[in-house]
């Protein structure tokens, strides 16, 4: 059906846009804001219930140690409020068809929130009465959440949704809601739009370390991922302290295993993830601040401290006391008390050694997220050898893809850090604007 899309500041019915931006992480936001500032009408869609991507969930950023939430929330609210941006959350692309006139016809699927968006005040009364307890994906399963929930404290939009898979349809939330906005009758909404151009800003996936069984993730409770540590260190952290999962003890001897799922053909990812060395180094600095007595050991292959201020930041972590050991960890085993034994080859001494730690953090890599190519029905969005969106004119026009009128921004093209993502998204905005100007 043809649907009404209210723009942020107006109630016109719009089904035509200059550009469809897929993904509202920092790349999608940046491209959208630049194009919207230039006067183009942008439809920005996000499959998650909140925009902000991965960055909004981080603790601090390297090498400035700025609080990630503090610097990203203004951009998030600017995006949500821009008069030229129409934003749809919980929305996925079903198909994109290129028409003979060069326009794209996109079919979108807006999943039901089971909450009336405009009426929800974010009061969280529903959360309090919901009897269901399930894993909180936005805290990377460190803690639980309810079946009706606000994704996280600084989510945008900050309104509830119902996780219908886990909901037991008891109706308690419906009775409790003071603004009567729970609506179990909501259905998937199919939205047809016509757009002149598309920007793919679908980001990356995190490597699942269960694919490397010798590190014990999922089996040993005190082996966690770097994203879980990111949450433990974040201002909106689940505990108010750094804890290890098995017994809630404050860890005193923490190990980082670098290149988990990167530079490793055995798990299908030969390339370097570009950010893990630095985010691990950042976490080490934050941990040394939070737990002054803790020993922190970093098991690495090479340290990729290449960006502005990075090498200095790495030196600083060493000066603060982080212990860097060049050597790939072969395996992790667990003691009865939950402590862990790492077996590794120390390259500097040339010896195979074992060491004990009470918490192990796996510095998981970034993977390509190529599912989006399937929505292009009569054209082919090509991938490169590493499964990222192919950039056929890499050196001159990195935002151009194999389809004319479809552009790409951020980590959909390659692993990259925040400033590189912002610049890539700016380049995509420039390329798209040039394309739109030449159409008109």
């Amino acid at each position, binding site marked *: 059906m043809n649907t009404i899309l209210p723009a942020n500041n107006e109630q016109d019915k719009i089904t035509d846009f200059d550009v469809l931006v897929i993904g509202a992480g920092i790349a999608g936001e940046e491209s959208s804001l*630049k194009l919207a500032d230039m006067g183009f009408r942008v439809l920005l869609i996000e499959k998650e219930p909140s925009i902000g991507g991965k960055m909004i969930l981080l603790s601090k950023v390297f090498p400035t140690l700025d609080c990630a939430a503090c610097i990203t929330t203004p951009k998030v609210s600017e995006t949500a409020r821009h008069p030229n941006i129409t934003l749809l959350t919980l929305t996925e692309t079903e198909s994109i068809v290129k028409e003979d006139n060069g326009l794209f016809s996109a079919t979108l699927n807006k999943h039901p929130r089971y909450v009336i968006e405009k009426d929800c005040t974010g009061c969280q009364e529903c959360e309090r009465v919901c009897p269901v307890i399930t894993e909180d994906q936005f805290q990377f399963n460190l803690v639980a959440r309810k079946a009706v929930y606000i994704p996280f404290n600084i989510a945008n939009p900050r309104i509830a949704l119902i996780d219908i898979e886990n909901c037991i349809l008891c109706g308690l939330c419906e009775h409790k809601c003071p603004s009567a906005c729970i609506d179990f009758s909501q259905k998937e909404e199919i939205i047809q739009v016509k757009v002149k151009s598309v920007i793919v800003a679908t980001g990356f996936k995190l490597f699942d370390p269960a694919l490397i069984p010798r590190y014990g993730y999922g089996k040993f409770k005190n082996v966690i991922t770097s994203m879980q540590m990111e949450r433990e260190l974040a*201002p909106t952290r689940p505990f108010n302290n750094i804890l290890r999962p098995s017994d809630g003890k404050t860890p005193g001897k923490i190990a980082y295993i670098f290149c988990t799922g990167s530079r490793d053909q055995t798990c299908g990812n030969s390339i370097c993830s570009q950010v893990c060395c630095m985010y691990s180094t950042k976490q080490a600095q934050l941990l040394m601040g939070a737990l002054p007595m803790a020993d922190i050991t970093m098991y690495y292959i090479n340290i990729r401290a290449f960006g502005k201020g990075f090498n200095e930041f790495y030196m600083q972590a060493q000066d603060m006391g982080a212990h860097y050991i060049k050597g790939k960890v072969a395996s992790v085993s667990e003691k009865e008390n939950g402590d862990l034994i790492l077996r590794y080859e120390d390259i500097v001494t040339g010896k195979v050694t074992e060491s004990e730690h009470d918490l192990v953090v796996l510095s998981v890599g970034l993977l390509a997220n190529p599912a989006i190519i399937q929505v292009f029905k009569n054209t082919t969005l090509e991938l490169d050898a590493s499964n990222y969106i192919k950039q056929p004119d890499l050196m001159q026009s990195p935002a151009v893809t194999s389809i004319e009128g479809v552009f790409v921004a951020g980590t959909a093209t390659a692993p990259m850090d925040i400033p590189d993502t912002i610049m890539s998204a700016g380049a995509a905005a420039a390329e798209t604007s040039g394309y739109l100007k030449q159409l008109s």
Partner: protein
Amino acid sequence: MKKKIGVYICHCGGNISDYVDIEKVKAAVKDEAHVYLLKNTMFACSDSSQKEMEEDIKTSELDAIVVASCSPKLHVPTFRGVTSRAGLNPYNYVQVNIREQSSWAHSDDPTGATEKAILLVKAGIARASESQALTSLKIATTNAVAIIGAGVGGLRSAIALADMGTEVYLIEKENNIGGHVADYGALFTSDIQGKELIASLQTELKKRSCIKLFTHAEIIDKKGSIGNFDIKVQTGNEIPPLHIGAFIMNTGFDNYEPKEGEYSYGLFDSVITISRFNKLVDQSNGKFIYNDREIHTIAYIYCVGSRQDLEGENKYCSRYCCTAAIHTSIQVKKKFKNITNLHYNRGIRTYGKQELLYDESSRNDDIYMQFSLDNIPQVKQKGNKTIITVKDILSAGKEIEAEVDLIVLVTGMIPRKNENLVHQFKLPVGRDHFFNEIHMKLRPVETVIDGVLIAGTCQSPKNILETINSSMAAAAKANSILTKGEISLEPTLAMVNPAACLICDQCFKACQFDAILETVYENRKVAKINSSNCKGCGMCTPVCPTDAIDLAGFTNAQIEGMIDALVD
């Protein structure tokens, strides 16, 4: 005098509240004059907090607000937006910085941090109570950009801007365009030739009539501010003054030149830099001959001029050199027979997809040896042989000696000496002497000077792909500022009370921006402010002997109120 002030104290999710006792701050300021509403918030900048403030302003009819959170550099536009949306003049909002100035600066002393925060908030309340509504000036802007530097980045910025409908003046100080890349052979990771890339960009440039290129040119005069700069360009020909809206600095880098004796550079002919080596590879065909000798064994020494540790040296990593050297070494093996590559490195940094080149090189039987700064490779000559020795970290510190035909110093990037530009534009320069952006993470192409953007390697070392991305991002930013045709200027300008002015020359001397004029008031000469030149810097206010000048947004009444609150 404002009588219904709303005060918001932000926890910054612990960044502030871990050190500053928010409840104590609230208790201490709740009885300050004119405080009508007092709240604390987890993140004042979050969307929900912003909405709550808007509601408060409307329902409680607040006439001013104070937000005590982080640096005004971060969130002044955010909270000005809040006040505007709620119908309150944005200049009736005052930002107080209790993060950078209290919690972060005094994390070792929570009590002191709390006391300081209390005083700062009280001063902010005093300033808000004397605040006045101000209206931004709207001025017309020119949709034209001057790009300084026609290297690969400057060329790409120019093309992108032209395609978006912005006029471009591309100013290059050399006679030729293309910068370093014009001399390069095959580029990683695409294998296209540097000269071909530049030729292709040059062809695109010529197709666009709205790009004017000036070579052998430099800016000799610059006036004005964002949206409207007037510049004079000096070149061989007479050029009329140009009127533009913004600048993009794309001035590039210089190659590090090794010191004489650094790895025996300048002492032995067999020690050369990577740029010289690249040209040699490019120009040689069939046999690889250097100094009448056929080259078979090549040693590459990495991090020459980068990652140094002495005071005054380059502490940074130059980012592109590991990949560039490996790429070259692969080319050499493809082009010539019987080549052995020895890589003396400090940990290879082929980040991202560039890792595939390192893989390829390792599979090609290249030998990698790693050294630390306290044990750098030693280069010696025995007869006509060049010997290199290293304690190799990768073989448990074993000393390894090799006889080589050529030693290639993999030199890094250094910042260009741009004294004139830095002086002319007051460009911010970082500790590493590259230009500094306004915010490293989210605003990498903007500077603290409105209308002056930076792109490419003048900001920090980058490879070509990264240079292109940043150059196009700067183009997008410039176009998004200028395409609307108008811009709002800060109304925080100086104003003269003519009745009090005795027309001494103090303010004329103090003003750096020619913003003070003479006018006539009641048959006598008095000073007057030219608002299009005034930057609101405040230099004229304290020198006025009769207090005839006030700065809007920072009036004498406001400043005195703040001082009273601070010393109370």
